[in-house]
């Protein structure tokens, strides 16, 4: 971009506009590819080093190739057993995902009812999107302390996690309902369906892809959340807390192994979701007509 600016005065005199357009394309393309490399290479480094040998360090050169660190992850000793936090994270994310779906769908449906104060309500939910985790987590910690409640991953952390995923789910569902044609519901109503039946039989199946997206949002935001959990989870931490604690003690390739495992799990989830969407849109389009 900067290069293009620098050359422009001369270019204007001598270059055909197509040449200039192609030059900009190349420059922007180089910037994009460069950034993508920059974005992926650290993760790639982590993948590679997670397969280091038994004496492998946390940097290059790689000392041998093995599954040692994954095996260590599997039969871990008491202090760095990542399995219980992982299970807690998984369950918490499931709960957060389910709650987010219910709350976002009903909140977005309520917005369609244009109730009094729906403008302020919109901003209330938007607020959760903008409030940083460190503040929400700290504030909620004060709240529970004042109320004399002991924090735990499946109570206080759960409440805060939902408040984090809910705005995303709400915005997603608003966008989904924005594209939804309300006349489909009206058609159902004139055909003898009451509102609940119309929602169940017409609206729900059509917004389902958006609902799945919301569920995925709810899961992954909770599963990866660190700041909010740090303040509210109490003694039994989630996976990100365990990773951070291990990082504080010592950086070992075991951390790379767990990082690789969770990243691969995220990728698989994204892939499955995309595949499901693709299947569904194909089903809606139907087989090509002869």
């Amino acid at each position, binding site marked *: 971009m900067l290069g293009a600016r620098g050359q422009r005065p001369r270019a204007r005199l001598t270059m055909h506009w197509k040449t200039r357009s192609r030059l900009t394309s190349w420059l922007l393309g180089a910037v994009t590819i460069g950034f993508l490399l920059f974005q992926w290479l650290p993760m790639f480094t982590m993948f590679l080093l997670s397969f280091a040998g038994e004496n492998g360090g946390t940097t*290059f050169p790689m000392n041998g190739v093995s599954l040692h660190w994954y095996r260590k992850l599997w039969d871990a000793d008491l202090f760095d057993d990542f399995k219980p936090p992982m299970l807690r994270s998984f369950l918490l994310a499931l709960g957060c995902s389910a709650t987010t779906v219910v709350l976002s769908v009903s909140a977005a449906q309520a917005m369609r009812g244009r109730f009094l104060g729906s403008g302020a309500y919109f901003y209330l939910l938007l607020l959760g999107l903008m409030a940083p985790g460190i503040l929400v987590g700290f504030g909620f910690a004060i709240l529970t302390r004042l109320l004399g409640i002991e924090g735990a991953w499946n109570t206080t952390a759960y*409440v805060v996690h939902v408040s984090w995923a809910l705005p995303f789910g709400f915005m997603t569902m608003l966008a989904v309902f924005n594209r939804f044609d309300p006349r489909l519901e*009206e058609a159902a109503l004139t055909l003898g369906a009451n509102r609940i039946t119309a929602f169940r039989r017409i609206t729900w199946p059509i917004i389902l892809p958006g609902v799945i997206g919301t569920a995925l949002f709810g899961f992954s935001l909770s599963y990866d959340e660190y700041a909010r959990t740090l303040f509210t989870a109490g003694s039994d931490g989630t996976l990100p807390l365990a990773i951070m604690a291990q990082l504080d003690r010592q950086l070992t390739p075991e951390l790379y192994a767990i990082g690789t495992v969770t990243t691969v799990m995220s990728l698989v989830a994204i892939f499955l979701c995309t595949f499901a969407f693709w299947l569904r849109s194909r089903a809606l389009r139907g087989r090509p007509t002869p």
Partner: protein
Amino acid sequence: MSSIRPRSAAAYWLAIPAGLWMLAAVVLPTLLILWVSLWGGQSVSPHNPITFDNYTRFLSNANYRWLILETLGQTAMIMGITGVLGYCIAYFLTVKVTSPAWRTALFLAFVIPFWTSTLIRAIAFVPFLGVNGLLNQALLALGLIERPIQAFLYSRLGVSMAQVSLYTLLASGPVVYMLNSIPPALREAAMTLKATPFTVFRRIILPLTLPGIVIGQVLVFLNVLADFITVTTVGGNKLAFLGNLILLFYEGSQIRATAVVSVLLMAVMLAGVAVALRIVDIRKVGG
């Protein structure tokens, strides 16, 4: 009419759970922080008199004042870099790449990391930036440097690199959205009116994508201001911004000091968002 009647009781009942949840988990805690930051006296207790002493004590420390400025400077820098980078990428992906397959592939490569853990991505920068890290190895192999650069890891440079990598998508995403919503006919219309490509960009494309730029900048602003994870993982113990200070005070059980820093952070954020809202109406962008 639809499956919900305007202003019906059902609308209120459906709205209440999510609303209460947000009030209890976000609004009330935030107000509590504000209240706690005003607690006076010796011991930490709600029965003490309300005072601004906590603020004066904090702000009288030159180190802390400098920290605030440093945090703001870091945020501004990351906003600038991700803004330019994000716009270039957004423009390239939506306008310059014409093949749908390539566009999808590049876009996925851009977006997918966003769906993975930020913490893991930050940690991944450690072996990337270290003395024997991939970046140094690559630069050595290319003959661009003679000795590994120490300053990548556990430094402000490394933290900034990680933050740029983590947050460029936030700056870019809204621009992609706005660029996609510009009908191609507009560009063609401008060109038939004798506008050169650069004029089309400056007079048509840039103003129409401005709301996307502003929203992207707000997202980066909020995230960098409150970021402490990248700073702890990539910056080691040598670096701290306001977010780290909050954590430090909290771990030292200095609840009131934690609250003071939190309120200051919140005030900066609100000011930033207010400025952004003066430039664009976020409600209009959603369409």
